[in-house]
């Protein structure tokens, strides 16, 4: 109903295939970005470092998972492993390459993750479905194990824990939550834009072709090998960068066991609940999975007037996630993003229904 499309006509394909073809959407997005940029001035440190920062980071990781699963249709349970690679790679780059710019280190760590991703993606050429899932589980376990066992990665820290260095960009130390938030925000936004470009371009079409009908994809001349490995590499890159930020902007002190298979599952859930094969879904899903426990707590506070025993809370959380997953898979396999999309279609046809 807020859409006034009459007169918004396109005279070039560039215009027609732009990310937000409708003026109203562009305005909305502009407002959103503005808000995202200014929120640190209103949000307190807790909100920034306990919710917004992890939300952005996990959204990025979910985006990576989504590229692989949602777009290229390759089931993966190992995203946490690739995060770990990113995190430790970043730590070591900064540790061992004196004066390396933070951003460069982050990108390099992403590339490391990508390489590992390619290695573990190789089986995807022969196998699919849960076979592939197991292969990715292998990566998950193997990576965490090796990071755990080879002390070099952790600079021989006796406790087996690394402490992320300062985030130095152009000589400025981004120490406060607010500054960290901005760093994360910028990186996430840029990578999201790139992902969107790939998704709506020939690259994305290749992924989806492989996902939807690989035989036909081959017949159109697409190389399954290149396409799948590409998806693995890019997906892992996003997870890697996410991992690096996870360590540097969120956890600060990290041990390999922080990147457990449970984390992988959570990321998987973010993608399913948020919406397979949509950029926006990654953000919605991450937000949902992240905020759910908090809502739960608030809920209990208001209902029982006291916070519940942590174990019960976590148990409930698990049940709710599980139920959500099943429900979404049954009723709206395309997740929250799809719901939003439907609402939008309604608004564009308002007052009609269809």
């Amino acid at each position, binding site marked *: 109903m807020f859409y006034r499309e009459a007169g918004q006509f396109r005279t070039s*394909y*560039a215009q027609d*295939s732009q990310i937000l073809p409708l003026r109203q959407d562009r305005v909305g997005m502009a407002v959103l970005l503005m808000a995202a940029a200014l929120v640190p001035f209103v949000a307190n440190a807790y909100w920034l470092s306990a919710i917004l920062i992890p939300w952005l980071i996990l959204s990025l990781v979910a985006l990576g998972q989504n590229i692989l699963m949602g777009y290229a249709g390759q089931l993966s349970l190992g995203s946490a492993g690739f995060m770990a690679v990113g995190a430790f790679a970043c730590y070591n780059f900064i540790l061992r390459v004196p004066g390396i710019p933070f951003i460069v280190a982050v990108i390099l760590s992403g590339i490391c993750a990508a390489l590992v991703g390619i290695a573990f993606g190789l089986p995807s050429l022969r196998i699919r479905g849960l076979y592939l899932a197991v292969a990715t589980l292998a990566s998950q376990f193997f990576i965490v194990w090796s990071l755990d066992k080879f002390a070099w990665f952790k600079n021989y820290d006796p406790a087996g824990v690394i402490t992320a260095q300062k985030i130095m960009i152009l000589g400025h130390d981004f120490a406060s939550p607010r500054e960290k938030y901005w760093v994360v925000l910028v990186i996430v936004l840029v990578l999201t834009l*790139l*992902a969107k*470009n*790939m998704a709506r*371009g*020939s*690259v994305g*079409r*290749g992924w*989806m*072709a492989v*996902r*939807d*009908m690989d*035989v*036909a*994809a*081959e*017949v*159109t*001349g*697409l*190389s399954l090998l290149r396409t799948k490995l*590409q998806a693995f590499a*890019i997906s892992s890159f996003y997870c890697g960068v996410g991992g690096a930020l996870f360590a540097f902007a969120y956890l600060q002190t990290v041990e390999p066991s922080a990147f457990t298979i449970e984390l992988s599952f959570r990321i998987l859930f973010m993608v399913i609940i948020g919406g397979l*094969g949509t950029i926006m879904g990654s953000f919605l899903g991450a937000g949902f999975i992240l905020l759910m426990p908090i809502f739960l707590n608030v809920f209990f506070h208001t209902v029982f007037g006291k916070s519940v025993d942590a174990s019960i809370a976590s148990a409930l959380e698990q049940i709710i996630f599980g139920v959500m997953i099943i429900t979404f898979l049954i009723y709206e396999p395309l997740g929250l993003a799809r719901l939003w999309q439907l609402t939008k279609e309604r608004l564009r046809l308002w007052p009609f229904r269809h």
Partner: protein
Amino acid sequence: MNISTVLQSSPLQSNVLQSSQRAFPIGAPILELESISLRFGGVKALTDISFNVLEHEVRAIIGPNGAGKSSMLNVINGVYVPQEGTISLRGERLAGMTPTAAANLGISRTFQNIALFKGMSVLANIMAGRALRAHATFLEVALQLPRARREETESREAAEEIIEFLEIEHIRKTPVSRLPYGLQKRVELGRALAAEPKILLLDEPMAGMNIEEKQDMCRFILDVNDHYGTTMVLIEHDMGVVMDISDRVVVLDYGKKIGDGTPDEVRANQDVIDAYLGVAH
């Protein structure tokens, strides 16, 4: 059932056949298959089949169900590799064909039971058909560098030309999964065309269509042949339609070739008649 109903030709109008001359006159053999044999384990799918396809012609492969028509097509574009026999394109022998290789050689195809990319719009499906012509790397695409943008526009233009050609402007941005069967078939033809193939393999393009849809599809096939000069190899078991639109027909039965020639010759061929009367409809 009597012979006439089986082999009779439908009253389909086709300008190409009426017209005195064609835009792309039929040329030399472009595709030659020599004594092709294909087995799955013990099962013989194709036995010693040889025929050729001339440039710019519409070549039909017909035969009762299970005659090995689809296998034949799958051999041509490298989905199956025959145990014996050779395929040569413009006289060059092709060894170890794969679908991708076939695509690179300008062989494109559609599938018997629609193999569209369900999750994508009509436009995206057709653009995806141009995978071969997308050279920009993922980085160029991600950063929207000039080459990526140029290629995107080019493939959009090509896709739009096809959309116009197939008269599906009104469903351009509809997800293919929402389309009725007949339109999906048309879109699949569009995707195959997007690769700008030299040879187009159509696996039962009219299966399960009503008569109007069939006539539309025939018109499109003939128009493609007339407009782009694409060489067509199509499988069909609705004899009537095939007889109308194809220049020459190969007849298979139980994996063996039992007839080859112009529609009229084939109609007259006793083996063919028997084969068709043999199958109970």
